[in-house]
């Protein structure tokens, strides 16, 4: 039973981080109906940048914000180079290919300059060996901090989107870009900011998840990006609550499969869930089927 609870708890913790990744994907989906297929590289870059900055002697309190600033800034480039020129072009899927390309470039870049082997990431709050006991179950402090930070951020984002003028602007642009523009909302700025926020969330998710294992390698983020996407489509693309439920469900399933069957199936099961959801209910469990307007 303890083993079971441990797995469930570990699943909830990584699941919260998947929700965070999903949130990053949803942000740009809201404003532009696109998402960055190279988001995985941003996750990886956040952790690598943190490692590099701390290796250069920077304090954690400075290194984390700088790493996140880096991933946020990279998303400005993504929007500018990989997405904007290709929106509305005949090859409607051009941006899928171009964002994948940019992600591939970043991955190649890191492999070239930091090596393709896993490098160890310095602990920022807890040591990866410290454990806390909750209801008799041994829980890694790292996992716990991932859960706490992710949940707090998700809640914060949800409140921000509902209450603040910027949040309302994001929702207005999501609903109808032309109408939002007519209403005086600076659509371009909202779009760019949504990309920056998406990059920051990705970097943060990368930093948090790299803490659990304590290492990062160039391919670190790729599967995680897909897991984030699974979480995002689980409740319907763009739904915050759906992403939270989806992320945690995926995390728990993944850990249970890994614990009871074989860790070799951990990723495969997530990909299989992805295929099943897309076939069965592409609009998500809570979403409504889109009306095909002609």
């Amino acid at each position, binding site marked *: 039973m303890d083993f079971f609870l441990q797995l469930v708890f570990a699943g909830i913790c990584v699941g919260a981080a998947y929700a965070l990744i999903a949130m990053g994907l949803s942000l740009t989906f809201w404003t532009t109906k696109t998402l960055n297929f190279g988001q995985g590289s941003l996750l990886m870059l956040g952790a690598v940048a943190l490692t590099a900055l701390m290796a250069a002697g920077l304090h954690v309190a400075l290194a984390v914000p700088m790493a996140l600033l880096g991933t946020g800034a990279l998303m400005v480039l993504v929007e500018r180079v990989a997405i904007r*020129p*290709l929106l509305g072009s*005949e090859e409607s899927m051009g941006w899928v*290919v171009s964002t994948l390309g940019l992600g*591939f470039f970043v991955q190649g870049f890191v492999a070239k300059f930091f090596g393709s082997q896993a490098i160890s990431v310095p602990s920022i709050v807890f040591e990866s060996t410290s454990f806390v006991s909750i209801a008799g179950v041994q829980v890694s402090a790292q996992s716990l901090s991932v859960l706490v930070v992710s949940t707090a951020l998700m809640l914060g984002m949800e409140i921000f989107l509902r209450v603040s003028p910027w949040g309302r602007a994001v929702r207005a642009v999501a609903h109808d870009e032309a109408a939002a523009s007519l209403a005086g909302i600076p659509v371009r700025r909202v779009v760019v900011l949504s990309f920056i926020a998406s990059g920051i969330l990705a970097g943060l998710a990368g930093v948090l998840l790299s803490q659990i294992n304590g290492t990062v390698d160039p391919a670190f983020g790729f599967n995680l990006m*897909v897991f984030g996407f699974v979480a995002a489509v689980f409740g319907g693309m763009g739904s915050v609550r759906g992403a939270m439920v989806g992320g945690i469900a995926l995390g728990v399933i993944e850990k249970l499969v890994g614990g009871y069957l074989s860790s*070799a199936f951990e*990723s495969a099961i997530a990909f299989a869930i*992805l295929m099943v959801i*897309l076939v069965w209910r592409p609009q998500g469990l809570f979403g409504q089927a889109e009306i095909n307007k002609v």
Partner: protein
Amino acid sequence: MPEAFKAKLAFIGHPIFGLALVVALGIGAEFASGSTVQIWSFVLVNVLIAQSINVLTGVAGQVSLGHAAFLGIGAYASALLARKFGVPVPIGLVCATLLSAASGWLLSFAAGRVREFYLAMMTLGFGMIFYEMIREWTGVTGGVAGLSGVPSPALKTLKFFGHSVGAVGYFQFVLAVTAIVMWQLRNFLTSRYGRAFFAIHASEVAAGSIGVDRVATKREAYTLSAALIGLAGGIYAHLVGYLGPESFGLHRSVEALVMAVVGGLGTLSGPILGAIVFTYLPEKLQFFADWQFMVYGLLLLLSFVMLPKGIAGLLLPRSRYIKPSARKASALKSQGQGPQVSQDLVRLDTTQPLLKVNNVALSFLGLRALDGVSLEIGQGQIVGLVGPNGSGKSTLVNVISGIYRPSEGSVAFDGRSIVGLRDHVVARLGVLRTFQDPRLVKSFTVRENVLLGVHRLYSQGRFAAAFDVPSARREEASMLRKVSEALEVVGLIALADQPVRDLPYGDQRMTELCRVLVAEPRIVLLDEPAAGLSEGELGRLADVIRILKRRGVAVVLIEHHMDFLDDLVDEVVVLESGKLIYRGCMEDMYRNAAVVSAYLGTEGRQEVANA
């Protein structure tokens, strides 16, 4: 590049040049060094890989980020058949191709349910599942350690039916296979089947409106694409003699994409050029090999913006999607015969209406778009469908043409119910339509677009098309004559070989109209055909509608130009808020109180009454 330069390079796309190249390479291999023959073999494998992506993504418009999985299916199938069961390699290659094709066919059921980036993610997931599977299924695939000892020329273990085959012999075999496959692919893509791929790429709804079954067509594209790359996988397995999971991961899928995209999607020569470039670069440039993945990333990032049509678009004239031989044959036979369409007179069966819409209702999210509309149209009748914006005119046309299914009521065509039939089935019955915004294949010429209209009239099968058999050729030529006649009637013959992308709006509308005209319609639904047309074009539009009437075709005309309708229609139907408020002749409509207030409000009605 200037067009004159491109024209000089046009010979590259000519089949005779291709044949000469194949013969030269086949003979040259006897004298070339071992490493050269090895690179040439890899080029051929990559040609098939790039062409596979091209068929699916470039032609049929379905993005795939997991194509390495099909490559792997072909490679492991062929390798295992040869190693474990001693199946002769040529038969193993056929099995590998079929197995991969079957996998593609199966994936299409899942993939057909999603589109755009959902599809991209799904194919990505598919590729990753396969990758994980070959890593973990150690008993069969050898797992991470890989599968070695696959019969190959390098190991001197490759045998075809007991005869030992060396590197040169294997290359010549692969060259012949690739050449034949490319020839068939060219025939197929310039047939009705290939053009249907382009049609679903441009607009699935428009494809449905000319009788193209979008589900079946996508399925076909997946199957064909998977077959091509499965064959490539089988050939690859016996070329390298060792298979490991790393050869079939995301990198390989990305590489395939790079070759096709940078070479030039949607053309036949583009992927071949891409395959040559990206086989040679890493071999010849150490710099490129070191930075390979960063370069691939950059190329994917920039190529759609900097080089949208790839190397082929840069160097070669635009591809055409009709075989030149068919063009020639159609030109020869049509000499001395003028257009004959306009003379057709049909005896009308007026005993029953051709189309009967009865009490049709449809709601969107609580909004009642159609509310109990009934309508009858007989052969050779022209009915105007008018009403303010949002009154349900286009919705009615969408219901009749099978795009929407009404929640209540019935639609009968020629005495049989067509409610619930899919749009391409309705179109195949002879119910054809145009759209408010012309939905054409932009890279096609006017002639090629109009040729899409006769899609439903072809009888040739897939194999006849791929082998370009004489009967298929004759049929193609006769369809082209039909198209030329229709272009003459509509007045587009002078523009026939212009890509529609370069044409003004009015000509695009007329092209779409012509696409309907050639399809031998029995009823035509025109959604605001006069919008954006010049005076001259309006005249030609009216002529075409009258020709249709003389042929006994019923015409439903959504229009706002009342003058245009005045001397054309037999009856006018007015909709408002989804309800039919008037049905009768044009003159009475102007005086009908309900119609006037629908258009002008009740105050307007007063003014009309006072005037």
